[in-house]
């Protein structure tokens, strides 16, 4: 693939530099750590701070969700690589308004370690930290081992709900509980049609043969549960809905929020093709789609493919989902 690239080693720094210039009304870089993006509205005295972070290459995640009533500070890692513990710690300090900080992140080995170390670092400064670890990716482990599942696009709902709860003036425990409730209500699945390449590595880190699709693929090309011939969009959409809803087992009459995200190189019109069928299937199951989000919300470099996330809603989650927010991506 042809790329807009200078030195691959500078890619992350240049991405973040351009991002904060383009969105200077909403975000800025932490002067002492250029790997931390901070909301212009943070910190707010007496309010719980919201922090996330993760590897780069998933834009607009994670940095794009920094803003008002959403994420207060984001730790930025190398491509597909966890941010440092120091960056997480600096993000926590930047988000701290004195009421504690909730770190809402995805279930990956590096992030687990670095967040754990960061919490230890900021404890010295008297900052109370609560964590919620997203694990919404259905195909990454069986339901009985949900704690092993990866966090994927459901993280966006977790941030939205956690950020809104914090904005409502809730305590750290209440924010943690709301974010946990949000991610517990989310199920996601990814389907990959083509691989991605770390520019510094120079070749794809996995292969999907022409005419094939990988069902259950992860956000870094982690293998899925099935590799099989690519079918028509409606069949793929049906498969995605089935995987997510089988794991969800929601009663008819449930209200849901739906997020369909491209993985980087799939045209947005194809995402709408998928959504057309996804909504029809959900309605056929007796679901009511309360809100839908379709676009490139959480990508994986230039991977071809899409993810589906379905969040089950109750009145509290609906109210928090509807709360006004402002960020580059949402």
């Amino acid at each position, binding site marked *: 693939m042809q790329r807009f690239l200078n030195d691959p*080693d500078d890619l992350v720094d240049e991405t973040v530099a351009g991002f904060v210039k383009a969105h200077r009304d909403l975000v800025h870089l932490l002067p002492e750590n250029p790997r931390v993006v901070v909301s212009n509205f943070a910190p707010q005295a007496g309010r719980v701070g919201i922090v996330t972070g993760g*590897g780069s290459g998933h834009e607009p995640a994670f940095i794009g969700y920094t803003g008002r009533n959403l994420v207060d500070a984001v730790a930025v*890692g*190398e*491509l*597909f*690589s*966890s*941010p*440092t*513990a*120091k*960056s997480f710690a600096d993000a926590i300090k930047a988000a701290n308004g004195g009421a504690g900080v909730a770190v809402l992140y995805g279930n*990956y*080995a*590096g992030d687990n*370690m*670095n967040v*754990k*170390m960061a919490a230890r670092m900021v404890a010295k400064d008297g900052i109370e930290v609560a964590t919620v670890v997203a694990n919404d990716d259905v195909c*990454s482990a069986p339901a009985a081992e949900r704690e092993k599942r*990866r966090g994927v696009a459901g993280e966006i709902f977790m941030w939205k709900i956690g950020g809104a709860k914090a904005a409502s003036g809730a305590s750290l425990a209440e924010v943690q509980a709301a974010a946990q409730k949000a991610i517990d209500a989310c199920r996601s699945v990814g389907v990959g049609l083509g691989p991605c390449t*770390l520019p*510094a*590595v120079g*070749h794809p*880190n996995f292969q999907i043969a022409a005419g094939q699709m990988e069902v259950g693929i*992860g956000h*870094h*090309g*982690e*293998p899925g549960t099935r590799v099989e011939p690519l079918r028509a969009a409606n069949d793929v959409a049906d498969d995605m809905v089935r995987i997510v809803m089988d794991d969800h087992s929601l009663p008819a009459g449930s209200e849901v929020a739906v997020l369909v995200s491209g993985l980087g190189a799939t045209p947005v019109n194809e995402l709408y093709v998928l959504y057309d069928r996804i909504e029809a299937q959900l309605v056929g199951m007796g679901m009511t789609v309360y809100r839908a989000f379709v676009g490139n919300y959480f990508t994986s470099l230039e991977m071809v493919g899409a993810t589906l996330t379905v969040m089950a809603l109750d009145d509290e989650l609906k109210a928090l989902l509807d709360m006004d927010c402002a960020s580059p991506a949402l």
Partner: protein
Amino acid sequence: MAYLANSGQAQIIEELAEVIVANKAWLSEIDGKIGDGDHGINMAKGFGRAAERIHGKDMSLDAAMLVLSDVLMSEIGGSMGPLYGLMFEDMAAALSGRSDIDAEAFSAMLRAGLAGVQGVGNAKVGDKTLIDTLVPAVAAFDAAKAQGFAAALTAMAEAAEKGRDTTVDLVARIGRSSRLGERSRGVLDAGATSCCMILTTLGESVRKRLI
């Protein structure tokens, strides 16, 4: 009793960095088989930066390890940043204040490094990680230290290589490669490989400075 002075040993960490940087492509290639192929890139970046910062400085071994630890933890991230960062931080703490490093001190350093890794990661022997190199290497050093420092370093290096090679037949149970299940069998673990490189290089650098 063989020993080396702790002071003026920054060169040991420079030698270590040289080996890691020289093996950048190989480490990435191993990682690329079951990971995302950036292990060598991130390791070379971290160790290379640390070497630049200690080059030409008169530093004790533990002070040079702290520089390396700081770079890994504050600039590299990923999984390897905290794992090796804490390993070298705790190794440095075990050497701190000592004028000489004998076999007992080196043993204490190794055990502290292992405890540092185990404190932040949850891997056990058999999970296909750097632990498969580190645990037998530390045990082999301790078992052989009665035969002298140099002999114990040789035993450590042999056990490290053997431990690294056991990862070929293992299925990854932790970290990103664990998502591959059976597909992770048949190749070396990149972390176990870099850990072996660290231990054997460190061991050789120490051995040739023994007095």
